[in-house]
């Protein structure tokens, strides 16, 4: 069953067209991550779903009900904000129960729900404190609790972890995942952190300029990006790109190299014409093993960045900057000769005109 469905959504700020005929449908219990560069309209979309912004055109359905004109509190959503947005003058308990009091729930029920949420999020000892006396992680937990007590079907998160330091972010990320497994609610989660997106999502929607570029599972997004933008956006360090000429016989010409694309899954058969040949830094094979691969070139390491768990090597191939990610134990120094191998099976090839995957 569909939990949230957005149909032909348009949103303008004056003359600025932020969301353009956006369609999206989210299954019940699904964890959907909205991922995109800053300013692409993620928060705007979330605010539209929450009812905090009036849409310019289109419809929003939540649980089969048309809520396009409904008040935020009547939509069956709970929202968690980046800046926590806790009411500073109320205690944690006051924060959690504010929405329930507004809904005129009986007191015992309020108590019970607050207690349950506090238990799930392990904030029981904090209930009588003011938000000012909490750490960042605790505040964000309370903010999640405020959505939790409302017993809603859909959770909306707007970059809930981006104000936290890296370690805490990793911890809370796991907690959110656990929470989702436990509650089974639909969750829509905005972030521009790829790791969060890849680890949390059932499906990821990559947004750009108010349009969804690709909506698919993390695996598909990573391995088969639908266009060059998605390919470039996902992955760190970013994918390497070569300009090339594809031929109908399933080969590609990159500078002086002719490569047989054996193993590459074309969308509909081999193509002819100018293309981008994309290859992820972590899929590069170094050393003697590279000789087995259809694409094997010699290069020299320019810069080496050891990062502990892995090593980044910068080099130049066919005049293009080329990034390689390899084992952290690899003993490579700047100036060392490299044998670089690429397997077309892991490549992504995009039409130069449309930038779509071929």
């Amino acid at each position: 069953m569909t939990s949230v469905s957005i149909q032909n959504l348009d949103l303008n700020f004056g003359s600025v067209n932020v969301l353009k005929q956006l369609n999206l449908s989210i299954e019940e219990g699904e964890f959907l991550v909205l991922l995109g560069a800053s300013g692409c309209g993620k928060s705007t979309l979330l605010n539209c779903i929450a009812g905090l912004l009036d849409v310019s055109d289109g419809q929003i359905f939540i649980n089969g009900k048309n809520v396009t004109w409904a008040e935020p509190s009547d939509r069956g959503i709970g929202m968690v904000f980046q800046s926590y947005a806790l009411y500073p003058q109320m205690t944690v308990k006051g924060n959690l129960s504010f929405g329930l009091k507004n809904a005129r729930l009986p007191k015992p029920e309020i108590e019970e729900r607050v207690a349950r949420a506090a238990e799930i999020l392990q904030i029981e000892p904090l209930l009588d404190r003011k938000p000012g006396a909490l750490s960042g992680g605790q505040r964000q937990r309370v903010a999640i609790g405020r959505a939790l007590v409302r017993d809603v079907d859909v959770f909306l998160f707007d970059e809930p972890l981006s104000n936290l330091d890296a370690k805490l972010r990793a911890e809370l990320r796991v907690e959110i995942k656990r929470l989702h497994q436990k509650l089974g609610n639909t969750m829509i989660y905005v972030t521009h952190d790829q790791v969060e997106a890849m680890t949390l999502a059932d499906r990821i929607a990559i947004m750009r300029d108010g349009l969804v570029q690709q909506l698919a599972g993390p695996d598909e997004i990573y391995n088969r990006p639908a266009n060059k933008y998605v390919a470039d956006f996902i992955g760190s360090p970013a994918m390497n790109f070569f300009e090339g000429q594809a031929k109908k016989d399933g080969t590609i010409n990159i500078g002086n190299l002719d490569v047989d694309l054996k193993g590459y899954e074309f969308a509909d058969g081999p193509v002819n014409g100018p293309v981008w040949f994309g290859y992820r830094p972590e899929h590069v094979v170094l050393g003697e093993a590279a000789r087995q691969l259809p694409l094997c070139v010699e290069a020299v390491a320019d810069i080496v960045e050891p990062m502990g768990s892995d090593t980044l090597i910068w080099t130049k191939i066919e005049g293009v900057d080329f990034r390689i990610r390899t084992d952290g134990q690899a003993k490579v120094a700047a100036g060392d000769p490299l044998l670089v191998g690429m397997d077309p099976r892991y490549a992504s090839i995009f039409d130069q005109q449309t930038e779509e995957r071929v």
Partner: protein
Amino acid sequence: MANNSINIAATAVSGPSGPKPRPLLSPRNIMIYSTLFIVCMYYALPLYVMIVTSLKGMPEIRLGNIFAPPVEITFQPWVKAWAEACTGLDCSGLSKGFWNSVKILIPSAALSILIASINGYALANWKFKGSEVFFTILIFGAFVPYQVIIYPIVIILRELGLFGKLPGLVLVHVIFGMPILTLLFRNYFTSLPEELFKAARVDGAGFWGIYFRIMVPMSLPIFVVALILQVTGIWNDFLFGVIYTKPENYPMTVQLNNIVNSVQGVKEYNVNMAATMLTGIVPLIIYFASGKLFVRGIAAGAVKG
């Protein structure tokens, strides 16, 4: 190697370490403190003269040494200023004016702050079609010179049947306080994080719920600023008081003027000084009671406004 590090430690002890010493009589300090002293004297001396004079009897004042402390302290001038000084035929002192002022001040300040804060909140958070235009027009009101509208207001109050009565004056004060107070509140509310407002809406709070439960409790400093502005402004008002009320409703400032400027008999400087200080006491108390909050509120408004 080990030797080397010991050497470094030794030089560190002999070189500059800890806070840099600042000589007390540096040119900078002399400049700052002498300026402060002069400014301080500029304000404190007249106050000193007023206090000593108000505590002297008339014979002592006639000696003419205004800086000398009172030989014989007497509170008689204060009592006279409060309860017996004459304005024309009425000899009940400032007390009547004081209570008139209180009756004007409390409803004027309360109403203007209440209305302006709601205005500011609506303009900051519940933007409606034309809200910007509305705000611009309101702000424009702050620049209209009083003189231009004195007479039209006389007519309006007369038509409303409020001319010469306290409610009429209260109405005038509320209206005149509106532009600047609305601006103050709107700027403050816009500076509060927007996500709080959104969170409250998701939590099902409405216009009034958000105002009373979220916004007001977070805005104490700005309410204090507004209170001080209004209390001093309304208490010190002379023009509106003299124009829109009748003698029996005159606020304290008007009465003070009448006492000080009365031409009959000898000038009783001690009574005049006492009366002046009595008139200034309410704003003074407000300043002292809320000075810290006032500064905080002004700073908050200024930084994020």
